[in-house]
C-alpha cells in the first residue's frame, strides 16, 4: 500500500483570473470545458476581429470563428509552451483558417464582387483602400511606415487581405518572384522594427 501524498492539490484548481492564457490552454488540453469557456471569453474578440478583417462577411466570420475554436479545443492537447505563446498559437491558426475560407471559391467570388476587384490590376487602388486597414497599434503602424511602399502593400494585401502571392502579383503588376522577395524583406524589416526575436 502506498503512502498517500499530501493533498496540496487545491491550487491546481486556482482561480482563473490569475491564470495565464498558456495555463488556460493547458487545462483545456485535459478536457476542461470550464477552462475552455474562460479561454473563449478572453480571446474570442481577438479571433473574431481578425477573422472579420479578412472575411468582411459577418455570418462567415462567425462560422470561421467557430471552426477556429473547435480546432483549439481538439488540438490544445498538442500545444506546449515551446511553441510560443498561446495567443500566438491561436492567432496563427485563426489567420490560416480565415485565409482558407477566403480561398474557398464561393467566398472569394463573393468577396471580390463586393470589393469590386474583378479586374485586379486596373482596380488596385480601390483594393488598396479597402485593405488599408485601420491599424490600431501605434507600434505596428509606425513599423509599417518603415517598409518601402511596395513591401507594405504586399504585406498588407497578403496578411489583411488574405490574398495569395499570385493574386498580390496580379494586383501589383509584378512577377510572383518579386512579391515573394517583398513579402520576405518586408516581414524581416517589420521583425526588426518590432524587435521580435525568439
Amino acid at each position, binding site marked *: 500500500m502506498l503512502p498517500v*501524498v499530501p493533498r496540496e492539490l487545491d491550487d491546481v484548481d486556482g482561480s482563473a483570473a490569475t491564470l495565464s492564457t498558456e495555463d488556460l490552454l493547458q487545462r483545456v488540453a485535459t478536457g476542461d470545458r470550464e477552462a475552455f469557456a474562460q479561454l*473563449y471569453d478572453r480571446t474570442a474578440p*481577438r479571433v473574431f*476581429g481578425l477573422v472579420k478583417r479578412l472575411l468582411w462577411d459577418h455570418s462567415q466570420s462567425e462560422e470561421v470563428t467557430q471552426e477556429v475554436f473547435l480546432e483549439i479545443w481538439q488540438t490544445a492537447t498538442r500545444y506546449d509552451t515551446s*511553441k510560443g505563446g498561446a495567443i500566438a498559437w491561436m492567432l496563427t491558426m485563426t*489567420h490560416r483558417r480565415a485565409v482558407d475560407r477566403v480561398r474557398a471559391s464561393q467566398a472569394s467570388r463573393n468577396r471580390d464582387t463586393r470589393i469590386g476587384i474583378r479586374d485586379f490590376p486596373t482596380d488596385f487602388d480601390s483594393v488598396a483602400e479597402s485593405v488599408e486597414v485601420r491599424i490600431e497599434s501605434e507600434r505596428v503602424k509606425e513599423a509599417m511606415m518603415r517598409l518601402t511602399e511596395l513591401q507594405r502593400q504586399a504585406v498588407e494585401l497578403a496578411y489583411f487581405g488574405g490574398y495569395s502571392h499570385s493574386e498580390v502579383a496580379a494586383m501589383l503588376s509584378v512577377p510572383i518572384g518579386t512579391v515573394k522577395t517583398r*513579402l*520576405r524583406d518586408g516581414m524581416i524589416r517589420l521583425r526588426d522594427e518590432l524587435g521580435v526575436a*525568439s
Partner: protein
Amino acid sequence: MNSKPSKDLGINSGAYVLHALSDSENAQFESLLAESEETRAEVTELADTAVELGLSVAPVDPPASLRARILDKVATTPQLAPLTPADAAAPREQHEIERPVGLAEERARRRWYSRPMTTLAAAAAAVALVFGGGVAVNAVIEGQHASETASQITRIQAAADYQRSTVPVSTGGTATLIWSETMKRAAIIVQGVDRLPGGKTYELWYIDAEGATPAGTFDANGSMQSVMLTGDMKAGDTVGVTVEPAGGSKTPTTKPVAVVATA
C-alpha cells in the same frame, strides 16, 4: 540581399508565414523547414511578427449566440490524443540531454515540427507518423498501431462516465488522469514532467485496499505526453506514479510523485 541558405525555396519564408503560398509550395517549404535550422529560426521570428499584425487588429465582440453554439459543440467533440511530435522528428538519443542546444533553436525546432493541424485527417496521419517515430509509451502500446492508441484515449473521452482529475507531480509538472469506469480504462497525460536519468523509469499503479498493481511504465521528456494504463481499472482505484528502476518493479519501491483518487 537575401542570406545564403534561403536561395530558392528560402525566399518563400515571408509568404509562408502570411499563408500566401499555394498548397504545393507550402508542402515544399515545409520540407525545407525540416532540413534547415536557419530557415526554421527565421520562420519562427517571422511568424511571431505576423502575430503582431494580428494583434494590431481591433478586437470585435462576437455575438453571445456564437459562444453558446461553440460551447455546445465542444461538449460533444472529442479531443485529439496528446502527442509529442518533437520526439518523432528527432528520435531520442541517450546523450540528447547533454547536447547543448540554443534555446531559440530548440524552440524553433519543436514549433515547426508540430504545427497545428488543419484537419482531423491530417492530425490522424500525424498520429501514425509520430507513434511510428518512437514516442515513449508503455508496454501495452509498444507494437500497437498508433491510431489505436489515439482512439483509445478518444473513446475514454467520449464515454458517458468520462472523468478527469489533475494533480501536481511533486517533482514538477502535472498529471491528469482521464478514465471511464464502465470501460475500465484510464490514461494519464503528463505535462512538464522531468526526464529521468538513465536506468530509471516512471511506473503507474492501480492502488486499492489490497495494495498496488503495476499498470505500465513510461518515460517523460518535459513536454506533454499521454500513456494508456495497462490492465483493468476498478471503480474507486487510486492511480499512483512512482520512480522505479528501468523496466519497472512488481511493487512500488519509492514514494509516489503523484497520486490521483478516482473515488
